[in-house]
């Protein structure tokens, strides 16, 4: 059984969020990988860009930060220098500046530190799954996939449980700023100029800034040193610390990017269980599958569809010249279906190894800071789910987010029977 057949005509408009509302345009990506692996797209107001779609090309370019810079924006849309300065996180910097900030943040998200959360995650999964599965038929994105990252965000950041739904709503309004289900300020459908200095051009950014400020004041007053927010503010070995602006932008980044990406990974895994019934039995047999299954689920999901770089010098590839100043998009979504790297890329193979997927932006200095937490959450969630289920089936069509930046199943109706 084919898990999912891409339905676009091979000539989808990559600049249109609507293109992605039915899932990533995989026929178009397949055509580009085959016929035009360095593809020029004309985009409104001279914002034209190159699309890189082959795995090998992205791998080569992603580590070449001397030519391909993150410091002029990481989205398809242009931003002015003042917007960039106000809104940037270390995602929008290059080495060596990037390395210095990353050093301050990395320890808090390192594999050994994250591993300590396994019991917390398992306990949260118990609560979440017990509550969801008894419903029988439900929206698995809302009841399962959305719950775990939201509540882990609270644990990892040391936030009050009661604040979490509000925070996640604001995070969604930020990052899903092109989907009317998530924000009343749909980015490409109204004038959001008044919010352009805010993260993701969104009024939710202002609210999150204010929340972060109050939170840290309250934590300081009570001597609360729980969670990674405290850890990232500790000085590095050389005494340097992150600035106030860096901190509040980082906070927004955690609430937004650190949340929905894991949600959509879990959602994609649940969708795979629905459409490839053999997967549940494989999970139930356990063992080595748990070394490889999380990465395969995360490959399948590819929540970050692309990141953009800007060329700092001319660069020759496939007989074309990328000029200094040109924008270049690394389409991870395409690379993760590249059949020169992945056998049968449209099939979920939970034993796939090696699995050189690029969902975390592997191959460059910006590789996802939260990847160990994401893998851990995905592993524990599916371990606990597999124990409880006899079957899981679709209870209707699923719906994707309207966004060419974040790929995710926002609605996934399922029916379960318990073991």
């Amino acid at each position, binding site marked *: 059984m084919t898990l999912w057949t891409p339905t676009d005509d091979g000539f989808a408009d990559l600049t249109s969020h609507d293109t992605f509302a039915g899932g990533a345009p995989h026929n178009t990506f397949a055509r580009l990988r085959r016929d035009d692996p360095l593809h020029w797209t004309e985009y409104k107001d001279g914002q034209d860009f190159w699309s890189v779609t082959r795995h090998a090309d992205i791998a080569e370019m992603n*580590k070449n*930060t001397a030519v391909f810079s993150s410091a002029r924006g990481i989205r398809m849309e242009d931003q002015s220098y003042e917007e960039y300065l106000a809104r940037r996180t270390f995602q929008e910097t290059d*080495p060596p500046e990037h*390395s210095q900030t990353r050093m301050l943040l*990395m*320890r808090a998200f390192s*594999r*050994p530190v994250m591993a300590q959360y396994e019991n917390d995650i398992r306990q949260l999964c118990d609560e979440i799954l017990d509550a969801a599965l008894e419903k029988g038929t439900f929206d698995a994105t809302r009841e399962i996939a959305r719950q775990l990252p939201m509540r882990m965000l609270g644990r990892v950041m040391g936030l009050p449980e009661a604040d979490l739904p509000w925070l996640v709503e604001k995070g969604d309004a930020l990052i899903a700023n092109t989907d009317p289900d998530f924000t009343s300020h749909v980015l490409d459908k109204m004038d959001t100029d008044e919010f352009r200095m805010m993260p993701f051009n969104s009024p939710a950014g202002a609210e999150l800034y204010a929340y972060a400020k109050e939170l840290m004041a309250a934590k300081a007053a009570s001597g609360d040193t729980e969670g990674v927010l405290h850890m990232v503010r500790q000085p590095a070995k050389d005494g340097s610390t992150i600035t106030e602006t860096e901190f509040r932008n980082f906070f927004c980044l955690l609430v937004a990017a650190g949340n929905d990406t894991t949600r959509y990974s879990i959602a994609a895994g649940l969708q795979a269980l629905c459409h490839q019934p053999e997967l549940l039995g494989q999970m139930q047999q356990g063992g080595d599958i748990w070394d490889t299954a999380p990465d395969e689920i995360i490959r399948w999901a590819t929540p970050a569809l692309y990141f953009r770089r800007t060329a700092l010098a001319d660069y020759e590839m496939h007989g074309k010249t990328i000029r200094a100043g040109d924008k270049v998009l690394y389409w991870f979504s395409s690379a993760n279906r590249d059949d020169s790297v992945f056998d049968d890329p449209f099939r979920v193979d939970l034993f796939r190894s090696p699995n050189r997927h690029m969902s975390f932006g592997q191959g*460059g*200095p910006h590789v996802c800071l939260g990847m160990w937490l994401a893998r851990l959450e995905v592993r524990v969630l599916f371990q606990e789910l597999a124990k409880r289920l006899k079957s899981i089936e679709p209870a209707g069509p699923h719906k994707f987010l309207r966004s060419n930046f974040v790929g995710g199943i926002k609605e996934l109706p399922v029916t379960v029977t318990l073991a």
Partner: protein
Amino acid sequence: MHVTWKLPGGAEIVAEVADGLNLMEAAVANNVPGVIGECGGCLSCATCHVFVTEDWLDRVGGPGEMEDVMLDMVAGERRPNSRLSCQITAAVALDGLVLEVPEES
């Protein structure tokens, strides 16, 4: 040059590595399990951790400043002979180098 990776179970992988390639890239190209190199050798991930065997320590040398910070974040145990293999470059002087791949955490 030739490099030998000794795996936790006792198996060994030996490969010819072109000068100038870093030993994370060499390990990935030869499918050495446990050496991943998630960040492509940009000192952002600590997933290419190896132990340099005693005979080779002097010739390979110790970690740089950034690598030293990153080595505190490796999954398993850090030892005095720990290095991130993306920071070791293949060269004639290292012909015959033997690296041990750590147990995962």
